[in-house]
């Protein structure tokens, strides 16, 4: 007979203010197998834990039930308590009477107490059927994968590399740099974005521990912490990067003109192009989706010989390339090439996208002079489409009046309810940069309120006011298109208490940062989950901000939520530190709450094999017959096979049939 100790936590008033904890304790006293019942103000406090330790030490207790908060946060704490007291830490069960009790039933104290009793009975029922389990350990592959080569990914990779770990840095664009590479200057210091980022990009590219995989995507992820098998797809570049020197001759020669994404579609690039001037690696790619095949021959065929000259007729890019890196006679697979790598940890740093203006019908999206802030960033950048001159898109004339509109798609139930956090500051930055350069341009900032809570941010904002930038408190509700491509902003000034209008030459929409739709695909491959806003969910919003529910996978940057560059870099370094732990330890613990096949009972029907999401179950011959076996390093303990096994031969440790049935019995027993 087990000796179960039941410890009821008051959690200050959190539980005791609603649940009659003494009543619950008394109830627990008479449950089968219970030998000790106690209460404490805070079970997780030192005295609370000491109470448990002493009862174990004095032999009163060999199973522990703590009725308190959620096991999702506190189970590890109490398991450690058991371990320290010399009891197997898996002989522990929690009854969640706070998060799922007192906090949600404060309106019904009697009901909350009655429910708490049942939950305790359920936990006691399970505890009586618990068995000791042993942790196992496996070696960690000493390498990391960083997905995303923006500022978050670059810093994560560099930190790990500097600690001595091998890092694969995967970026789907031809160059690393991400969104930060598109920015002109950065707030609140007005540093040139490229000037501070480029050296870091180069450092990452040259670091002996970092292997840069650009134009690449993650095709598949298998495995588990310490031993992930990742399949990387290197997309077809149609340029031999071993030969390409990044001279740009092909881009100049290419006759195609297509919208240049890097410049927000405000100028053109060729089908052969280099991502941007400071690209790292600086290599050309050919975008086959827009290539017009100017020499008129299929890929993978020998060139036609000109009758006139007797020379082969080459495409403009081939002809221009001085190093022979572009050769259309090679048959290059359009789907690129696959490569498998093994890593111990993964950092996801896939970044964000900004909402396009087409999402906002009320803001005259058809007007060429309504642009997003990211486009404005390119428009004022020295490497941008106008070489840094501020010219409005419709007629390339200098604007006289500019309106900035905030909270476009953010804080808006029709789009995203969250604040994108950086819009106020980058609007102010852009306004200041414009004002510094062109003091005669009138600038209106339409804001619900200004959010400038960072270090030196408010000062930065105050200076903008000093420079004569007009702040109008009030959200813009609509726009009218005036002759000559002007846009009349229909606004409201909360302070004036009156409607206002601005006849603007340009309107800049501070559109929201959002998770790109491609994130869904990646999430499915890795097993990441999303928060309510659609960003990747961290394991705990406060205490585990870079960890995820998938052990060994970490988050950095805006894929976890909107943030500015300092916060991104901080988080990237944090993620690197967290990811380094398993790499440094060299071993990871395998949770023993996983499935195990009782080979004697297995009938070899094979029902379980197609069910396992991790292909952890294989059929092996045992006494001449096929029998299922589970690879403990692959199994993550979901229990799908356990529920499916027709021979009841698969046991999920920690969640056995007997344990769950005993919980059901306790919950349905007449109260």
């Amino acid at each position, binding site marked *: 007979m087990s000796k179960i100790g039941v410890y009821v936590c008051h959690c200050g008033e959190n539980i005791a203010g609603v649940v009659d904890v003494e009543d619950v304790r008394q109830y627990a006293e008479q449950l089968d197998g219970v030998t000790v019942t106690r209460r404490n103000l805070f079970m997780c406090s030192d005295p609370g834990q000491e109470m448990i330790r002493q009862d174990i030490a004095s032999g009163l207790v060999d199973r522990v039930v703590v009725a308190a908060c959620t096991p999702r946060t506190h189970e590890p704490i109490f398991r450690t308590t058991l371990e320290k007291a010399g009891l197997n830490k898996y002989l522990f069960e929690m009854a969640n009477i706070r998060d799922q009790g007192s906090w949600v039933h404060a309106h019904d104290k009697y009901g909350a107490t009655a429910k708490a009793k049942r939950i305790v009975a359920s936990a006691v029922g399970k505890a009586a059927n618990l068995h000791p389990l042993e942790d196992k350990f496996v070696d960690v592959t000493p390498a990391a994968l960083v997905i995303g080569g923006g500022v978050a990914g670059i810093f994560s990779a560099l930190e790990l590399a500097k600690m001595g770990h091998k890092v694969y840095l995967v970026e789907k664009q031809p160059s690393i740099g991400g969104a930060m590479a598109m920015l002109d200057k950065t707030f609140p210091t007005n540093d040139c974005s490229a000037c501070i980022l480029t050296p870091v990009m180069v450092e990452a590219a040259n670091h002996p521990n970092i292997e840069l995989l650009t134009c690449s995507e993650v095709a598949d992820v298998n495995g588990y912490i310490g031993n992930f098998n990742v399949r990387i797809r290197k997309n077809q570049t149609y340029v031999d990067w071993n030969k390409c020197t990044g001279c740009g001759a092909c881009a100049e020669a290419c006759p195609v003109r297509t919208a240049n994404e890097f410049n927000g579609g405000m100028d053109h690039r060729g089908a052969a192009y280099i991502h941007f001037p400071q690209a790292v690696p600086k290599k050309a790619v050919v975008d086959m989706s827009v290539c017009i095949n100017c020499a008129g021959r299929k890929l993978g065929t020998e060139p036609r010989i000109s009758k006139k000259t007797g020379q082969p007729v080459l495409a403009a890019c081939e002809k221009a390339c001085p190093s022979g890196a572009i050769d259309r006679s090679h048959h290059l697979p359009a789907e690129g090439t696959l490569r498998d790598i093994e890593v111990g940890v993964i950092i996801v740093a896939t970044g964000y996208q900004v909402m396009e203006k087409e999402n906002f019908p009320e803001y*005259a*999206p058809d007007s060429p002079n309504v642009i997003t802030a990211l486009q404005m960033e390119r428009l004022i950048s020295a490497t941008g489409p106008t070489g840094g001159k501020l010219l409005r898109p419709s007629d390339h004339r200098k604007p006289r009046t500019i309106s900035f509109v905030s909270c476009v798609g953010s804080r808006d139930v029709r789009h995203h309810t969250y604040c994108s956090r950086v819009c106020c500051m980058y609007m102010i930055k852009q306004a200041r940069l414009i004002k510094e350069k062109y003091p005669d341009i009138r600038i209106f900032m339409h804001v619900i309120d200004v959010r400038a809570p960072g270090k030196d941010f408010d000062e930065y904002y105050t200076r903008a006011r000093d420079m004569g930038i007009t702040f109008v408190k009030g959200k813009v509700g609509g726009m009218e298109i*005036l*002759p000559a491509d002007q846009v009349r902003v229909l606004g409201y000034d909360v302070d004036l208490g009156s409607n206002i209008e601005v006849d603007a030459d340009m309107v800049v929409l501070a559109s929201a940062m959002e998770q790109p739709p491609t994130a869904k695909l990646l999430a499915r491959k890795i097993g990441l989950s999303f928060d309510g806003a659609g960003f990747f969910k961290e394991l705990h919003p406060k205490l585990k901000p870079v960890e995820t529910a998938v052990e060994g996978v970490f988050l950095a940057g805006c894929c976890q939520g909107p943030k500015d560059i300092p916060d991104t870099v901080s988080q990237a370094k944090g993620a690197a530190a967290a990811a380094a732990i398993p790499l440094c330890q060299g071993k990871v613990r395998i949770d023993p709450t996983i499935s195990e096949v009782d080979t004697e009972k297995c009938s070899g029907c094979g029902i379980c094999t197609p069910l396992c999401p991790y292909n952890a179950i294989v059929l092996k011959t045992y006494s001449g017959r096929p029998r299922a076996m589970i690879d403990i390093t692959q199994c993550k303990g979901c229990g799908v096979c356990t529920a499916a096994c027709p021979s009841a031969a698969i046991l999920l440790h920690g969640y056995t049939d007997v344990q769950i049935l005993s919980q059901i019995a306790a919950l349905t027993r007449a109260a």
Partner: protein
Amino acid sequence: MEQFGMYLGCNIPFNAPDIEQSFRQTFPNLGVEVVDLQGATCCPAWGTAPSFDINTWLAISSRNITLAESEQVDIMTGCNSCFGILAEAKHMLDHDPGRKAQVNRLLSKADRKYSGSSEVYHVAHVLHNKIGVEKINASAKYTLRQLKVAVQPGCHLLWPSAVMKVKEKNPFFPTMLKELCHALGAETPHYSRLESCCGMGAMRSTNQERALDTLKDKLKSMKEEIDPDMIVTTCSSCYLQFDNAQKLLRDKGEIDFAIPVFYYTQLLALCQGLDPAQVAAISETPRDEIIVRIQSKQRLLN
């Protein structure tokens, strides 16, 4: 022949029956049969029941819709305001079963039951989405080529878009009426106050001064930015405001121009060669001159 229940409202049959006549005469030429909704009442107007009690409003609106239900036709309204009221009422009833049951209890006093089987459309929706610009274009005998039209789509046809079966691609920059005018050969240059309010209805009855100011702002934008030959609308309220209040503004000396005003089907009727004495006969802002120009030989299509 496709049928629609013609919901006339109040202003059209009593103040602008030439619009009613234009419906009756143009739709058959487009292959649409206009079915009368015998015994229809006011939609009811925003300032009446909707401003007092939601269920009374919905009972009166749904009673009107039941007239179409029993004829097994969808409703076609000529007035934006009627459309807005009926479409919102239908949306509320169809999305709230509890509300529908309450309203049906009220309706039972009039021995009627609302089922939700008839849709609510506006004349502009029927013209644009059911009939289509090709048929309209084919029905015209006269062209409006080189005539400039200031379009006035009116507000209740645009918002809230959630309640509408037929939606503009961008309700803030509507194009349906423009396309309908293009079908007749007219030009429809953009003017900035396209979507600002005409000032009719509740605003005018509450404070005529402010309502006239609102209209003036809009008229000036039309005049100064595009100097149109005429104003065309598909809202009978806007129509009356542009026609009648434009005169008031002129009388007060606030404006010194007169832009003729047409309801879209009046213009269509003229292009179809119908008799102006029946389809465009009542107005306070003169339009005889432009009517003669429209139905002139030069504009006759072969």
